[in-house]
């Protein structure tokens, strides 16, 4: 249970990191790409993604495979949710269906690792 919590924390950190990267990209759209890497949002975003790699690695050492199958697509769902909730990105019904199909595909794909 603790490993699941650590893994989910990593997924949440990575998703928030992506939102921060998007915020940085939107703020710096007129600047050079190099400058956008020095945006505080971009720095925070990359730090969160880095932290998520550590938590995921720690969790994956002990998590049973059957659980990882279900947990892997979580990141996609969370990024979509945060994009709509925090960045107010417009989502249509076909986007939702597409996401659900992708999630199903990832689960099927990972079942094949057994």
């Amino acid at each position, binding site marked *: 249970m603790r490993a699941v919590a650590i893994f989910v924390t990593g997924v949440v950190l990575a998703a928030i990191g992506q*939102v921060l990267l998007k915020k940085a990209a939107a703020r710096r*759209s007129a600047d050079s790409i190099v400058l956008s890497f020095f945006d505080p949002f971009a720095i925070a975003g990359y730090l969160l993604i880095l932290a998520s790699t550590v938590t995921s690695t720690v969790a994956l050492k002990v998590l049973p495979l059957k659980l990882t199958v279900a947990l892997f697509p979580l990141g996609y769902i969370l*990024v979509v949710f945060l*994009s709509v909730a925090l960045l107010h990105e417009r989502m249509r019904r076909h986007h939702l269906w*597409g996401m659900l199909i*992708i999630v199903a595909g*990832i*689960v099927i794909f990972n079942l*094949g690792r057994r």
Partner: protein
Amino acid sequence: MIDESISAKKIGRERVDPIFWLFLFLSLFCQVTAVILGKVAALRMGSPTLGAFLTNSWYLGTVACLMLQAVCWQIVLRGIRLFVAYLFTSLNYLLVLAASRIFFLERVTLLNVAGAAVIVAGVYIVVREDLP
């Protein structure tokens, strides 16, 4: 023209400059190349010391690809909605699967192939209206 763009935005459809799609493909390519080079680096590395990492050209190639991917991703996020771009990256399941079979002769199961096909279908549904 302006009215068209506004009404398209209202229903959640956005005109995306093709250059951003190009960078999204490039970002995906860098991500997959980094995975492949990382696998080669792991296979050719002895004990994982700091020196072994710094002198392993395959590992340095991995780092270079990831840096290039970060640059591409920053450009992508300037023009494509985060959720669309992020869902698109799930195609790396298909590309890594193909690479693992072609370059490393790894075993590929029917479920792997079926899952990758379902992912491609899902990505197509997500991006079909945003494609140029």
